[in-house]
């Protein structure tokens, strides 16, 4: 298949943007330091749809992780004079316990579950951002100088803030589960990367998934609608 120079150039650009974005966000093992001054660096507002071709495949990531864990276990076994890894060290064993197959698989399924939203609607103003995720709760954060946004509830703790040009959401939940979303915007403002890292106290490696989103303009319906309390969704034909 012959491609025109313009198509090739576009493909290369997309690839470079992806690599850059992924590079920014795929080193999440090191905890991002949230800035206390809380100055907004980027405006993420807009509608975004997932680009499956640029987003990570959970299965591939899981395979990589399984290989890494096995390799690590083998190295440890060799250094201890054993020929093969034993017991809980051997990740592929489908038993309970730390780094067991079911724990790693659980972590990967969890990461997949919480990064499934195909559409995002982001509203951002001077003091807050709301990332509406289809089929999930909205990620929200408030920005006030000198204070990190932290919400503690009986069900978990949320911390969010800026790390340079990236917006970081951290969620600490019971069962030793913690989730981190790092949102980065592409240089042209048309792509969004959400790097999600899931950590479980039962798996020694974090599991990360990168989801890439493309900006899109929601179709003009010719109606202007708003929610009301007594009449539900009310639409008029007034132009915006």
């Amino acid at each position: 298949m012959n491609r025109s120079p313009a198509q090739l150039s576009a493909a290369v650009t997309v690839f470079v943007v992806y690599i850059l974005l992924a590079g920014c966000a795929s080193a999440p093992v090191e905890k991002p330091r949230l800035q206390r001054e809380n100055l907004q660096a980027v405006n993420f507002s807009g509608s975004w749809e997932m680009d499956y071709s640029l987003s990570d495949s959970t299965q591939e990531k899981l395979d990589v992780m399984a290989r890494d864990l096995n390799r690590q276990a083998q190295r440890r076994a060799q250094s201890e004079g054993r020929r093969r890894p034993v017991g809980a060290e051997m990740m592929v064993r489908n038993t309970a316990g730390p780094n067991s197959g079911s724990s790693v698989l659980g972590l990967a399924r969890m990461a997949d579950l919480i990064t499934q939203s195909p559409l995002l609607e982001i509203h951002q103003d001077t003091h807050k951002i709301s990332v509406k995720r289809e089929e999930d709760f909205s990620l929200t954060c408030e920005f006030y100088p000198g204070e990190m946004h932290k919400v503690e509830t009986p069900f978990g703790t949320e911390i969010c803030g800026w790390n340079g040009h990236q917006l970081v959401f951290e969620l600490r939940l019971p069962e030793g589960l913690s989730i981190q979303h790092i949102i980065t915007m592409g240089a042209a403002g048309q792509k969004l990367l959400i790097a999600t890292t899931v950590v479980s106290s039962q798996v020694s490696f974090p599991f990360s998934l990168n989801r890439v989103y493309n900006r899109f303009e929601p179709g003009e319906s010719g109606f202007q609608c708003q929610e009301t309390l007594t009449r539900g969704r009310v639409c008029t034909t007034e132009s915006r």
Partner: protein
Amino acid sequence: MYDRIALMLSQAQRVVSVAGMVLCVAVLMVAGTDSAASTQQSGLVDVGLVVFDPGIPADQSTHSQRGIFPDIRKAEAKYMPVVLRQVLIESGDWGVVRVLPEVLDSSELLVTGIILQSDGLRLQLRINARDASGVEWLNRVYSGSTRSTDYPASVPGDPYLGLYQQIADDLAAVLRQKNAKQLTTIQDIALMRYAIQLAPTVFGSYLTQTPEGRYVLVRFPAEGDPMLARVIRIRNQEYLFIDTVDEQYERLSEEMAPTYNLWRQYGAEQAIYQGEYQERVASRGAQGRRGSFTALEQSYNTYKWSKIHEQDLVELALGFNNEVAPTVMDVSGAVVELSGTLDSQYSEWRDILQRIFTLETGLPPAS
């Protein structure tokens, strides 16, 4: 000869000038003389209810944590005094009860309030009442809570009617401790405070203020005093304006009531649900082995649903604002317009009275 002519001309000019002023004031006030009933005629104390302080913390970062929706609070601050007004009127203990956009110092009894907490389950208000002499009648926090049977709230009606009733009862209790003379003195002081604002040179010596801020009546103008009669007519005219402002608040209250009641009902249901949800979660054990997908999913979903319910309330607040904001803006605009008209009218009245006083007494105008 020419001097006498000049003097006669000057006197005639003065008479014409005074007559013109009097006519001007009379024309200005003719409507107010009858329609706005004077408080002293009825013997009942008039009440001024200032639009409540919405109690929104200046630190915006605390709003979401404390469950405060500023736009809703601002609407509530205009809504609640109208409910209290209705309760006071129905008690029959009071003269005219008006909702005021701001403090009117010359009110016979001035009631102010701060909203400390307001949601579908609980209402907490700090209410202060002070009469024209500066004596505090009331300064306490009122709390009310609702039960599920209070919803859906009927219109007219309010799930916190008991709280407003308690305020009215407490005010009435203080009222009953006052004898007729004390009440008349309060009314006279209120009138003098108003007169001093209009013509300080004329009425300034009728009142004194103690170091504690209390007003004491030193003397009172003679019956039939023309200057006092003008002041009373101007005050009645001002009341006409205030009554128009008051009607705006009543309109807001009527239009807002169905939406506001629904908002409080949803808020109460949400809060009850959250409480029950917390109890359910606390009582159920972990479903899967620690670290398993089932356990992780349970932990995530528990958080997810608590967030979804919390965020529903934010969506409802948005729905409330979408529905009520146009009326609030409309009423606020009308109030600002009326208050602006009143301010300019008031300044005109002050000027006219000052000129009449100068012409009548020959004294130089107050600086």
